[in-house]
């Protein structure tokens, strides 16, 4: 995918662009409203990652401009204002998704992939690694072409792993992805482990290979050869 990242904080912009490039996308960067406005007039992008609070303008105003020229371009909003009305305003102006700062890169990746799927596969994408296949629209998981019974959370967890293969996912980012703000009420994320244990068991029962590796002190990693 060709992605334009608009963000005025350079250290963050650097992190985002290098992360996106690692993911195999083409990434262009812009650190201001006017610059971004010129870029979207000149080039076509598949996805615009947009910070709302830019020093020389409101990022949200770029969306109508973009949509009038290139309606199929996806928009993901990044904002420090992570409250409900900003979210609503952003989505109303035509954005596909919204992510409040600060966020985990793995979470950003999951959102980018979700927009990508909606744009290019109408949501009918399959995630397939080795002998494991996830049919995302139907929420079906197959091991060696045999369906396995996963709970909703387990499916979401496996999807999160397969969206971020070969990347260390902290327990924190997993918990936040699955339970959102509710995890504040918990002092430890041990319950993440019990879900992973269940997934491993269910995969192995059907003769699949357990690719979830525990990285001590950090979290988990889904290993793909």
């Amino acid at each position: 995918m060709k992605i334009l990242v608009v963000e005025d904080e350079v250290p963050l912009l650097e992190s985002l662009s290098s992360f996106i490039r690692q993911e195999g996308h083409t990434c262009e960067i812009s650190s201001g409203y006017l610059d971004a406005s010129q870029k979207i007039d000149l080039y076509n992008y598949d996805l615009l990652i947009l910070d709302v609070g830019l020093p020389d303008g409101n990022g949200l105003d770029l969306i109508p401009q973009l949509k009038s020229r290139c309606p199929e371009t996806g928009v993901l909003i990044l904002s420090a204002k992570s409250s409900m009305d900003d979210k609503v305003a952003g989505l109303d102006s035509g954005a596909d998704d919204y992510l409040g700062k600060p966020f985990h890169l793995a979470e950003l990746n999951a959102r980018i992939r979700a927009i990508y799927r909606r744009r290019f596969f109408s949501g009918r994408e399959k995630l397939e690694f080795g002998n494991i296949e996830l049919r995302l629209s139907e929420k079906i998981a197959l091991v060696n072409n045999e369906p396995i019974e996963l709970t909703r959370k387990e499916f979401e967890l496996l999807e999160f792993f397969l969206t971020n293969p070969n990347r260390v996912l902290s327990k924190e980012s997993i918990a936040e992805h699955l339970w959102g703000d509710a995890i504040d009420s918990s002092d430890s994320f041990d319950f993440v482990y019990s879900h992973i244990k269940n997934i491993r068991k269910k995969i192995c029962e059907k003769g699949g290979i357990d690719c979830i590796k525990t990285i001590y002190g950090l979290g988990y990693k889904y290993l793909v050869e």
Partner: protein
Amino acid sequence: MKLLQKINRNYIGYSMLVILLVGGGLTLILKTITQNEIDEQLVSELKSVEQRIRRNPEKACFDPMVNITRLSIPSVSVPIFSDTMLSEPPENDAEGFRMVTACDTVGGVGYKIRISTSMIPTSEFLGLLLMTVLGAMILLVTGLIILNRRLARETWKPFRQYLDQLQSFSFDNHTQIQLAPSEIEEFSELRLVIERFTEKALKDFTNLKEFTENASHEIQTPLAIIQARLDALIGSGTMDEEQGNQVEIIQQAIRRLTRLNQALIMLTRIENRQFSDSQPIDLGQLTRLQIEQTADLFKARGLNLITDLPQGVVINSNPYLLEIIIGNLLSNCIKHASPDSDIKILLNQQSISFTNAGETVNKDPETFFDRFVKGSKSSGSLGLGLTLVKKICIVAGWNVNYQFADGIHRVTVSFNGIPKES
């Protein structure tokens, strides 16, 4: 003591003193004047009696009030006045008389002449006069007091109004205080001062809130940078376990700071009433959804959930705010409940209550609604959860109440504003 009371008390005291002094003085003066008058009459009477004696000593005495006695030794003396009590037929009651006694010698014979006159008419006259004067004065004073009271009630009206308006003034509803103008200069001045001060206070308050909100937003960006860089570091896969443990602590701190920041932004926004749109919400359904979302967290702590969430309890509210209330109260239960204990969530038409067993608290449970007051030492707690709940309830006109007894904590939100004892 009311201002009017204080003024009136002084008025009355002073008036009493004046009345007493005037009454006493008047009595004294009038008495002296009438006595002098009577004495003069007695002296002229004495002179005419002496003349009559000179003309004819035998026929001089025809008045019962005049008493003439012959003296064996002739002598002359000046008239001596005295007050005496005499009983007079037919009543025979002792009455006050003024008497003059004098000795004179006519034709070599000494006479002692005693003339007395009744004091009754004068003292009656005096009393009447005094009564009239005192009556008039009392009438004047009471009239003044009543008039003063009425007048004061009317003139102090603006003052009372200002006071009432100041009392009902609150920063929460953001309305500038509007006082009715007054004709009285002092109140006019007071009004200006009040308006200026409340305006300034309101402005400072708004500035402070804007500052909080802006500061919170500004903090989000560096946090995002830290988080992104940390994720990149973790993702690089070059860290060992020890470094990983360090990173995890950093991660926790970032998360805590993020949550704190978001809660502060939320508090400010609720205080600013930025969530005014409301819609009917099925509270039972909303609660069930949230419980479902947190089921794993209940399970992880071995908590047993007992719920009574009937359908059809519809609350008019902003959906987001209601979610925060239910979410925070649920979190609270999960966080503070004793492991493997029961949690009860009961809903009825008036209220919803969350009950859990937990540590004994030694402070007033109401303080948990204050900012940064934490019930336990668990580091995961921000101390803002219940503050948010309370704030939302205030804005929505609901009542939230915290009870603690025998190791059982219960938080109840009553939607009709009246705390319900159960």
